[in-house]
């Protein structure tokens, strides 16, 4: 049997193989999707706590969504405030961190100065320390200035050291041909003009990646927020901290449904941004690596 015939007339053996392949895929997909399905079921379930005896709830309702969006004076659930807090921190962090990252990346990639290599080595060494370690001292410093339990403090924590996360952006800048910059210099452009008018417009994918990454940081982070916002006042929390408190030992049986509803609500904008970001991320690292 030639190769061409083999493709045209699938043998019985091949059909069996194809079936097994797709059954395995379906099983794996089910394994991945069941917890997500459970999240949706609980969000729409009439049960307040996690449903323990039945996978599918007795009846469906939108109560959890109504409660989480209009909490009133609830002492645990302040979801709209959490959302607003996280949004504010996200926006500020987005501006400051992205600016820092792009500035450092340009300096390290396109400019040559004596301190360049030493500074890059220091950044590598600093990244080996657990980030949380320095944050313990930062907490006490911010406490002296009365900035713990405030959004300002949280913005400082997220953005102050962000310049160290320049590596991916630098990798991208490295792939931009030097001849472009040289041409601009011959035209009489200064370094600032090259950065602003030539490199940044070309670096759109990595800018999108950096901006979204910085914006998402406070939505994903748990540890820094729990260190800085420790007063326990519900209205001062971020989404991650607030939802965490909803499923602790005390609150779980009353708030699990609302936790799931809140999880579904934050998932929507985050996943949209995430999909955009991942696309640029994969493009960035694979593109960079193939070009060497």
């Amino acid at each position, binding site marked *: 049997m030639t190769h061409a015939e083999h493709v045209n007339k699938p043998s019985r053996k091949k059909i069996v193989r194809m079936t097994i392949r797709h059954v395995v895929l379906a099983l794996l997909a089910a394994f*991945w999707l069941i917890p997500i399905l459970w999240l949706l079921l609980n969000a729409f379930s009439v049960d307040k706590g*996690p449903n323990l005896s039945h996978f599918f709830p007795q009846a469906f309702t939108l109560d959890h969504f109504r409660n989480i969006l209009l909490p009133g004076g609830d002492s645990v659930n302040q979801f709209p405030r959490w959302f607003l807090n996280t949004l504010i921190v996200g926006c500020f962090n987005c501006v400051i961190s992205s600016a*820092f990252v792009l500035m450092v990346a340009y300096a390290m990639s396109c400019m040559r100065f004596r301190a360049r290599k030493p500074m890059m080595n220091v950044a590598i060494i600093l990244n080996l320390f657990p980030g949380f370690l320095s944050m313990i001292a930062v907490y006490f410093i911010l406490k002296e200035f009365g900035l713990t339990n405030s959004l300002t403090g949280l913005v400082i924590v997220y953005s102050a050291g962000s310049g160290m996360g320049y590596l991916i952006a630098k990798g991208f800048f490295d792939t931009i041909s030097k001849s472009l910059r040289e041409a601009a210099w011959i035209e009489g452009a200064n370094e600032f003009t090259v950065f602003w008018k030539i490199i940044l417009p070309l670096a759109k994918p990595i800018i999108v990646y950096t901006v979204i990454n910085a914006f998402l940081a406070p939505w994903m982070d748990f540890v820094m927020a729990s260190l800085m916002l420790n007063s326990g006042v519900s209205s001062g929390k971020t989404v991650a901290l607030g939802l965490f408190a909803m499923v602790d030992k005390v609150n779980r049986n009353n708030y699990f449904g609302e936790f799931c509803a809140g999880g579904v609500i934050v998932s929507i904008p985050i996943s949209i941004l995430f999909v955009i970001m991942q696309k640029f991320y994969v493009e960035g690292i694979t593109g960079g690596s193939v070009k060497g």
Partner: protein
Amino acid sequence: MSMIQQTKARGRASGLSRAFSFIGEFFAGTAEAFRKGDLWTRLSALISGAGFFARGQIVRGVIKTLLEALVIYLIPAFMAPNLSRFGTLGTVVAQKTFDPVTRKNVWNNYDNSFLILLYSVMSLALIIVAVALWMKNMRAAYEVQRLKESGKHINSFRNDVSDLLNRRFHITLLSLPTLGVVLFIIIPLIVMILIAFTNYDHDHLPPNALFTWVGFNNFKSLFNMTAESSFGYSFAHVLGWTLTWAVLATFTCFILGILMAMFINNRNTLGKRFWRTCFMVTMAVPQFVSLLLVRNFFANQGIVNTICKNVGLTDWLYGIGAIPTANYIPFLTNPAWARPMIILINIWVGIPYQMLIATGILMNIPADLTEAARIDGANAWQSFWHITMPYILFVMGPSLVNSVVANINNFNVIYLLSHDVYVTQNQLMANANASEVDLLITWLFGLTQDRQNYKMASVIGILVFVVCAIITLFAFNRMIKGDKEESFQ
């Protein structure tokens, strides 16, 4: 010693000697400025703007002099009072006295050990920067003097500013980010490292109590591996699990993610986009939500346990002695079950990301490579092992090392799955606030949050650094380095 090692050793030596020669040059330049400078240049040593005033750079001179004035002002106002107490970290304990005149409680002028430590570190940093700037200033003053003597152009203030947007644009770009890193990463880090040598814990909490230097005592109690020492015992166990976890979590996700990507991208798979979407859906839910959800999913009285009980799995497992009670399967509450479960859940969380990246890389494998292998008669397995894997390792090698280090510090997965759920039965571990599923980083977090034991937390933090540094150095020397850069170009 192999050729590569020799070259490397030479490279390292030249890097070190370059650093020394740079510092040497710096001192020599300053000395030369003293020797050959005229009266104004030498006067710059006292009044830092003097040299610039004499050559007509008025604004530059004013700025330099003001900076000098600020440093001199800070010596009595900030540096001296803190540095003088650095040796003891304070001696005056806080006391409250009732003032009969104002009818209020009044605090005495007490010492705060933490602030003394922090401000001393800041003072030392300031002194180093000030000395370096002073030396640089001497050289600059001499430089301007020579320009003047040889009749060359001397920068006006306007020239200086436009230089900051051109030749010295890196200074403009880097000053703010660097200031942020120094103030909020480096100085706090130095303070935390120093705390490892103090007795800063629950019994010595400023501002009500003082703490002081204790030398290497904290390290001794961590490395004391006798049976009575709860910290030594816990450290050995937590470190072991941290390393196991980091390696397993990284490589299971890495290998399974690639296999999954290849499985879906195989030409025999129908509906690739559909299958890919199925796995991507889990990425839509933020990690902390899905982890908190899963921990309820697998709770002792959770839905999975109900189902297992109903189908008789729980009784069967009890029958063969795999679980201690017939009521539930202790998915996340028993050390033998919790560790594998955490790794499985991490696979569940991590594979979609890995799959996404692997898909991107697989599509970039030069088609002629696999095609050539097929013509040469390589089967799928050989082609995978000799082309696909080396290519993926080449692209992802460095990030693989990074993700081992990231997993050592993977706070979220462990903390969100085990906090409030997993309670250790091991008394020695409980004494040290550790548990069987704790990583070094979650142990560190717990010590600061639950016990306020900052001294041990910072000792552990230093050891995390040591572990990460060893892994990184080892990995980069052994696996990544070498002249492989061009093998796929």
